[in-house]
């Protein structure tokens, strides 16, 4: 039999046994775990009410079944009237208590700016022409300006967000430059918050010709600022050439605060110019979508994107420009959702150690390199919501939730279970208000003109409903007709089906093997299948098998109310995924997570 207890949230010591007085009890779960546990105690339970009022801290409402935890949450609402109404909220709320500011990976140029003369005495930014509008940081000496003499440098500066809990551990970049002579220098510095440092960590000199270098630079010591210094290392002299004749250009900049899981391998064999595959000695920490650097900071170094992995054979794009020899380094960075989640858990536990488990055993490793992962003043739950959208390379959407043991879970959505039920009676509330069986998608051509795909219809739905309902689906900012058609099809697949709200009185559910379980095991992300419904009549309208978005369980009657997933995950996934525009023609605005590598 079940038991309802109030326990001390830190020690777990029981404070009050409410079981005998429970008049109604429901547990609501959403896709992030237990959301709300609502208990109403019998009106006579005033002794308990008085004790409840006196409880300090954030006592935990714990519901168990013979030791098995059915639901738990922190007591947040206490209403004492004729009876006692208690509402506890699941530990997913622990991720809504604190704020988080940190940089993990930043490919944006927004945080780069010139260092002013007030900040460093050796800089004169007004003597240099700059440009940040073409997918990189460009700088060129201005015609007629006096440069040299040690105090006329130009500095690009990157600063981590104020109070960021993480510092910069590495920098990845592609550097192209055309400088007149070796007296012209380019240096990479780690700076402290006073804009000073002991010296550069990497330096290059002009050669009078165009040079091209790619590097994945891991700092020995992390830093809060990075400086990119360009200067003329000679006596002061007027720069006589036209502005733009000589230049320095950083592209594919990536600032990271991580050094774990870094791909760090070598070419197992030479790779010729034009090759689209390379062979590496180890594929550890290499993932599709990741940017890697061949022969970092060395001669003929290149930066490429991993497009496929087959053992130690790595497909890359675009094709190699240079020849490479076996043994050359293959390095990069990898910012994954699971690393960030681990830090979020630590962040929460630093303030509220009793609210979340330290265990990350249920956090699965993600396979998607998060290029843009900068968070400022955000709730951990909001960050996790973002990661759900962007956290995976695969077609499946990933989900976060906090289980009833306070452990944060991070896994693909498909990991839910399938439960069969035999419904003796079923109540379904449905409406055609959100049902559409003819859909087209809107997108745009390169010049911005709105375009529409052809209409795709669901013939079965139109026949059954004898009604055509049209919907225009927005395919985002894509200019790709094929992509827009995929969005159209996904929207139709979801919208043509009714999304009922279902109330099913069940005492048991059955797993796919026929094993019998109490209904309280049902969770969002699972699928409920009503196996005694007529298959022929119900296969289309989503009323036989339901992916569960929310569930409410009456712990006295066993009745289960299910809200099916809506919209379906396939649609959300398509709309949320970054556009494959990294190599599209000269984008002037970088789509999230998408950059181009210049030929």
């Amino acid at each position: 039999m079940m038991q309802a207890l109030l326990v001390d949230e830190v020690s777990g010591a029981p404070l009050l046994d409410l079981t005998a007085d429970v008049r109604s009890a429901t547990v609501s779960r959403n896709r992030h775990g237990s959301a709300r546990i609502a208990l109403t105690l019998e009106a006579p339970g005033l002794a308990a009410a008085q004790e409840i009022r006196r409880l300090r801290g954030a006592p935990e409402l714990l519901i168990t079944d013979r030791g098995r935890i059915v639901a738990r949450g922190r007591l947040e609402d206490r209403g004492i009237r004729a009876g006692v109404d208690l509402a506890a909220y699941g530990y997913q709320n622990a991720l809504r208590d604190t704020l988080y500011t940190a940089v993990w990976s930043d490919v944006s140029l927004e945080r780069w700016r010139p260092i002013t003369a007030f900040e460093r005495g050796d800089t004169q930014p007004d003597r240099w022409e700059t440009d940040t509008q073409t997918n990189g940081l460009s700088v060129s000496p201005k015609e007629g300006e006096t440069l040299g003499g040690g105090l006329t440098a130009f500095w690009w500066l990157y600063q981590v967000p104020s109070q960021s809990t993480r510092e910069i551990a590495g920098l990845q970049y592609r550097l192209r430059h055309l400088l007149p002579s070796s007296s012209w220098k380019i240096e990479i510095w780690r700076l402290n918050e006073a804009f000073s440092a002991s010296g550069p960590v990497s330096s290059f000199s002009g050669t009078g010709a165009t040079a091209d270098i790619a590097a994945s630079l891991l700092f020995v010591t992390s830093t809060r600022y990075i400086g990119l210094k360009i200067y003329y290392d000679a006596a002061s002299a007027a720069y006589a050439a036209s502005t733009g004749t000589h230049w320095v250009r950083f592209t594919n900049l990536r600032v990271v605060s991580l050094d774990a899981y870094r791909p760090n391998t070598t070419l197992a064999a030479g790779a010729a110019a034009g090759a689209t595959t390379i062979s590496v000695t180890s594929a550890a920490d290499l993932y599709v979508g990741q940017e890697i650097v061949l022969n970092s900071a060395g001669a003929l170094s290149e930066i490429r994107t991993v497009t496929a992995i087959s053992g130690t054979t790595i497909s890359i794009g675009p094709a190699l420009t240079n020849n490479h020899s076996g043994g050359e380094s293959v390095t990069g960075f990898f910012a994954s959702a699971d690393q960030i989640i681990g830090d979020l858990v630590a962040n929460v536990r630093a303030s509220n150690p009793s609210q979340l488990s330290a265990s990350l055993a249920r956090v699965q490793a993600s396979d998607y390199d998060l290029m843009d992962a900068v968070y400022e003043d955000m709730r951990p739950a909001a960050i996790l919501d973002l990661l759900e959208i962007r956290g995976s390379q695969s077609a499946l959407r990933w989900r976060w939730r906090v289980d009833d043991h306070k452990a944060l879970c991070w896994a693909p959505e498909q990991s839910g279970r399938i439960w069969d039920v035999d419904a003796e009676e079923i109540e379904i509330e449905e409406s055609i208000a959100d049902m559409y069986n003819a859909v087209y998608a809107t997108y745009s051509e390169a010049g911005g003109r709105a375009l529409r795909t052809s209409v795709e219809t669901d013939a079965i739905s139109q026949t059954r409903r004898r009604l055509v309902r049209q919907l225009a689906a927005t395919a985002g900012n894509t200019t790709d007709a094929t992509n827009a058609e995929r969005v159209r099809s996904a929207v139709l697949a979801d919208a043509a089906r009714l999304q009922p709200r279902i109330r099913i009185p069940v005492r048991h559910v059955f797993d796919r093997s026929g094993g019998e379980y109490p209904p309280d095991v049902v969770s969002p992300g699972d699928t409920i299948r009503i196996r005694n419904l007529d298959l022929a009549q119900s296969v289309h309208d989503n009323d036989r098998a339901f992916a569960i978005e929310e569930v409410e369980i009456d712990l006295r009657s066993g009745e289960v109310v299910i809200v099916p997933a809506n919209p379906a995950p396939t649609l959300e996934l398509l709309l949320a995924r970054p556009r494959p525009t990294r190599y599209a023609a000269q984008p002037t605005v970088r789509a999230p997570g998408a950059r181009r590598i210049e030929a």
Partner: protein
Amino acid sequence: MGILYLALTDKSTSTVVLSDGGRGASPLRLAQEGWAPVVAGLRPPMSLGGLGPYADVEETIPIMAATTGAPDVYAALRQLEALLRQAALWRRYPHQYAPVYVQIVPAGSARSISNPLEALVVGYPGDTEGGAGPIELASAWSRAPLAGLLDDIRISLIRRGAWLGETDVASDSASAGTAFTATFATSHDEYSPITFGWDLPNTPSSSGQLYAISGSGLVATDDADRLLVYDDASFASPSAPWSTSVQSNALGGNVRRYTPAAANTFSGTSLNVPSIFAVNGTYLVYASLRASSAAPEWSLYVSVALRSTRTIQTEPITWKRGDYNTAELVALGIISLPTGDPQIGTPIAAATNAVQLFAAASTISGSPVLDVDYLVIVRVDPSAFAQRYDLVYGSAAAAYWGTSQQLAMEVLAGTPDRRNPVGYVFKPVSLGGMQPVGITGSPELWARGDTIAGVWVAGTSDQYAAGLYRARDGSGLWAPTFSFTRRRAYLIPT
């Protein structure tokens, strides 16, 4: 059904007899048109709220007053109203009021009126703020008392669904990890409440020699065949990072030890397929766990492969040990082996062919180890009752222990009136000032069979997986005696 005896009583200061076979002197009588008790229904088996398997029932009992004068009627009605109000107040303030019972002996019963069946009164229907009282008077009230006869009075009350009768006891003793079976003389037709306690023999004669309860628990069921214990010998040969480790006082002498090589990485060890799984059904799985360090949080789950084609597993749980490195009883979850083919509903053999226990540690800093002394697996379907209890305070400090002490359960000794007992269920006998020990889990069993089987899991602060208590000098485990007191339940008074 005739009523030979019907009374409301707090067993102390107040009793109102409504029917006594004509022998009593109470001015109140069960009305002549008669009354029959409501037969309680079963609550849903997984239901939260109330007590036991039977729903509370609402009774409306017609009574009449027949006496020589109005003062006696008034006094009797006042007493009756006070008793019912006392029942409601007891529900509000259980430590300040005595519980009230309704007692009954049906006509023709072999039972004597000195040994009635009884059910706890937990209030009355209007027992809310502004609600009606428990007594409804007749419209003839204004004149009838003067005539000494007042008919058509109705009292309303809410009582526990089961009538409780005879008491019998059973006991058995066993050390931790060893299943015990206490056997009653007979089975009963209805689920009957059973309360339990235990006695500790031969406690050490001086303080400082005993590390008492510190994280322990009991699993109990009403059928010995439904509860089995599996120790390290029941596991398959281990491979790293799992191993077999010889430990003092471990069941069978060994524990199955997990030494995690990496944090947050599940690793499994295989069991020989537990014999209990030969019967399809729903199982609760518990483990006696001990961790060397308080730093890690351990995640555990059980995986079962069915017919080589499908794997089922428990939802992973997370467990963190307390201040002491004692064994604890941890519920790993629920496993169900199919009772029928999921498609056509015909019985099939589960043919379970692989069972594994998986564990992961949140950190490996300090090289922590997790010891699994044994697993307890309980089959809970279709109707067998199983319960699990936790002792959650290890606060019975050694210094308090003296000679010849007993630790016994005081509350619930034959009374079904459990109210908010947390922290006060168990307390030592004959030891003033001893700190009470807490419990979670309803401290009562409801069973129909004639046996109670259980496994006690407990540990001491400096020993692996030891018994409930033991002397520090290593003189061996003690086997406490578990005693069970049952009251026979009736739905229809007999």
